[in-house]
């Protein structure tokens, strides 16, 4: 996957966490993702279409998701409830939207977010994509963002 597609998601994730959660992220080493299992049990996913097609997934642990929701909502959810799920979906939405703004040349449209909760769930990226896993660490816990675009990305 072209690095020009990757960097906006790195920047967007950092920006969203800093702005909305007042939380600084430290970046780990991006790696190729070779299985369908997200790193953690809560996944916010959102599709992108346009001159290229792909998907971005934000993966959080249960406690990290609850903590993120607590900061956004200014009240602590008592469990991994619908408020937490909605909060994770909104984080995915903002990351995709902020990245899209840096990818104007691909004329992307962002879909509506979905959130999946549960250990051992699987998420399938477009079949001709090789997703990249972007790990981050933060004071509220580790976070991963997975980005995959179909390989027929046009030259811009």
């Amino acid at each position: 996957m072209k690095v020009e597609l990757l960097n906006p998601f790195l920047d967007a994730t950092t920006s969203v966490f800093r702005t909305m959660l007042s939380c600084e992220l430290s970046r780990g080493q991006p790696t190729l993702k070779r299985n369908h299992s997200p790193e953690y049990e809560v996944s916010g996913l959102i599709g992108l279409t346009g001159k290229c097609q792909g998907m971005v997934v934000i993966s959080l642990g249960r406690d990290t998701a609850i903590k993120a929701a607590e900061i956004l909502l200014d009240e602590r959810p008592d469990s991994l409830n619908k408020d937490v799920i909605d909060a994770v979906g909104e984080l995915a939405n903002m990351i995709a939207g902020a990245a899209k703004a840096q990818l104007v040349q691909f004329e992307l449209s962002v879909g509506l977010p979905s959130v999946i909760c549960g250990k051992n769930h699987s998420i399938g990226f477009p079949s001709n994509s090789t997703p990249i896993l972007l790990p981050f660490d933060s004071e509220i816990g580790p976070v991963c963002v997975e980005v995959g675009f179909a390989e027929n990305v046009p030259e811009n």
Partner: protein
Amino acid sequence: MCAKVLVVDDSGTMRKIVIRALNAAGFGDTVEAGDGAEALTVFQSSQIGLVMTDWNMPNRSGIELTRDIRALGSKVPIFMITTEAEKARVVEAIQAGITDYLTKPFTQDDLKAKLEKYTKA
């Protein structure tokens, strides 16, 4: 200060964030809607003094809501709060009739500054 603020977003999280910022800025009277269609119903049945709307929503978007409100002849201020940040999209929203625009992610201070600009106008 305006009568009532209509906050429209399909995300309950974002509605709470916006309402909290509105309350902090002195706008204590708010009503919510989860999509553009519901918002239009609320708008037509209430004395709304300000609309804060998301763009991308199921069941009628924020742009469509804006056009609907303007088609009613209303000049109520409409703020678009959205992830759509490209210039062409901003122009589209202005042409639809919005009053101001705030891109996500944003801080409470960002929203407060926008509201202060409106209330001092």
